[in-house]
């Protein structure tokens, strides 16, 4: 296949590669949404597929020094590419799980920085996760027939890794000029620094997100209790997070059971109806945290009042529900 034939074939096939690239991106974004992640915030750069530039493709096929393709058209696997840029190393894993778990394509994990680290532990260089994805069977999407031989290269990396790639790919990797060794050294140092920073980011996020609330599964269990009592689904809002943070000292392995015992007391059998009736009135009636606040009003009133993080008017209706005096002096 000569250069002219190559170009003509590519022009014919572009819609197919574009369809497949879009399919891959949309499938992954769909799975992210199903996991409860907002693509707009979870992905730090909007994801979309991109067809390789004609000139770049021809250059790669016929003029890359040290690289000779026997069948360049089919051997070049990044004619269409997609890129997912996330914040944390942990987030990369989540996307990798989605990619590996999809039943509609085959994947070839042709590059993973963890494997690169094992192979060359002393080397700090470009890091990314690369997959080559092909339909398992011939696929029809948006009226276009995509053969099973169609390849899409997927790249997954953190924002920091992406910054490194952006800096170095064109300036060093593809440059015609020879790059001096000290530049390579400095670039390697920046990747070492990025790796360390990624670890710090992960550590910070874990510490921020894990505490007794997660350890004892309180929110999930109270959400379930709220739903079974009222028939309404509760919504966790920032005001609840503030409450749980302020009164963290009371979160232990008995808290949920104590709240449940309280609510099964016939004396308080009217509370589910009260919550339903007041649902539109006050932000707390819409959140299962109200059950915790009721418990504190009865058993930990002084601490509740002393540390109450919002204006008192928000708490008064809940105290009225229980007939509880809030004068303490």
């Amino acid at each position, binding site marked *: 296949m000569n250069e002219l034939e190559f170009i003509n074939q590519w022009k014919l096939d572009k819609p197919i590669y574009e369809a497949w690239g879009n399919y891959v991106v949309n499938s992954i974004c769909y799975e992210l949404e199903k996991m409860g992640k907002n693509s707009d915030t979870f992905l730090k750069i909007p994801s979309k597929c991109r067809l390789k530039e004609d000139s770049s493709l021809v250059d790669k096929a016929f003029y890359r020094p040290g690289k000779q393709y026997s069948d360049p058209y089919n051997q070049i696997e990044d004619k269409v590419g997609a890129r997912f840029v996330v914040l944390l190393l942990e987030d990369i894993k989540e996307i990798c799980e989605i990619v590996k778990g999809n039943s509609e394509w085959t994947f070839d994990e042709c590059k993973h920085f963890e494997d690169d680290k094992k192979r060359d532990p002393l080397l700090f260089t470009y890091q990314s996760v690369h997959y080559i994805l092909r339909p398992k069977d011939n696929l029809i999407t948006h009226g276009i027939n995509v053969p099973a031989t169609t390849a899409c290269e997927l790249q997954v990396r953190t924002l920091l890794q992406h910054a490194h790639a952006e800096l170095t790919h064109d300036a060093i990797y593809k440059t015609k000029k020879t790059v001096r060794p000290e530049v390579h050294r400095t670039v390697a140092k920046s990747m070492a620094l990025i790796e360390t920073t990624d670890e710090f980011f992960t550590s910070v996020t874990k510490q921020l997100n894990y505490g007794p609330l997660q350890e004892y599964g309180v929110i999930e269990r109270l959400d379930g209790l709220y739903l079974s009592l009222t028939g309404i689904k509760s919504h966790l809002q920032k005001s609840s997070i503030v409450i749980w943070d302020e009164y963290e000292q009371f979160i232990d392995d008995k808290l949920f059971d104590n709240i449940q015992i309280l609510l099964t007391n016939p*004396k308080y059998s009217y509370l589910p109806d009260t919550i339903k009736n007041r649902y539109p009135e006050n932000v707390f009636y819409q959140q299962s945290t109200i059950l915790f606040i009721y418990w504190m009003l009865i058993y*930990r009133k*002084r601490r509740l009042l002393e540390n109450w993080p919002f204006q008192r008017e928000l708490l008064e209706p809940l105290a009225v529900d229980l*007939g509880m*005096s809030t004068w303490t002096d």
Partner: protein
Amino acid sequence: MHLLNFNVDRIIIHQVYRRDPDGNKIVPTQSHEFTNFEQSAMQEFKSRVKDAIGEGSKAVQMEIVNQETNDLPTLVDQLIDKDNVGFAVSSYDIAKKLTEAQQTKSIPGGIVVIFSGTQGSHSKRFLGIIKAEVHSGYEKEINPKTNEISLKFVEELLLTPGTRLYKTAGFFEKFDHNGISENLNDKWIVMVSDYQISKAEGKAAAHYFYSDFLGCGYPETSARTTKQFYESTRLFISEMNATEERKSSLLNALTTYLKVETSSTISSSDFAEKYLDDIDLQDTFTAYMKSTGLPDNAFTKDIEHIEKQLQFRKVNFRSNVKITAPSDVFKDLVIIESIDGDIDASGSPAEWTKVIIKDRIIKQE
């Protein structure tokens, strides 16, 4: 306990006056219309009611003493069953009765709020009475056309969160009454609250209010409740995770609280606030006392059943050594301190007690 799930359905407000300079009664001003609070004002009203007589308040349960035809408890018993017209008319009798009870010129006038509703998981009825007092600076605001008390005036007196210038009584229908008994105590629980006087003098309420007006007195169960309070508190202190010095100090405080202090009402909350300095310990204590069945409101103090126990403080040691002393002497002259003793086989020090008695021995046997 008494204001769970409570709703207010009728509110009417009359106005009573201080006696004139010659000591003569002034006829109360009568309302003929119910007060209709908008939703947020009603929410404030319920908030003030629960602050005055709700759970954990300073309200004290009282017993109905006067049950004759013209006594207030009888009026309440009849009033609750009347239709709106009858309720509005008969409620004025309560205002007149309050005027009669205010027999001295030193007792201020104010508004009398009479309201009814339901509470509890069985929607039992209740009737509430609030006297909100007028002090200097307030103008009496009556609409000259209708002769009705202005709502703005009512809201200022009654709904402002910081205002506590009122006396409150609640008559709560008992869950299990059979409607046959002629004793009104079998049908009604009465809670009485007077924030000003309880704060200043430790009494349940002004005498004219609970006795001359309401026809109530201190309950006969006070001695039993006081004994229960004493025993539960003593047990709590004994089992606290604290040093022996601290326990000794708290037991002294308990004796002082019951034996020495002149307040005629006591409560778990009051004891906690006075003697337990840590907020979380206060919460733990009051939750514990609630779990033993003690009332969470104030109750009247009657040390009849524990008088002997309050006279002496005792300390017992495992080795059968005992120290006994009159309570007042113990508090002042006996110092107890835990110290580390001899090291035992496992390398831990034994737990010893150092006792200092600030007195001279007069006899040994």
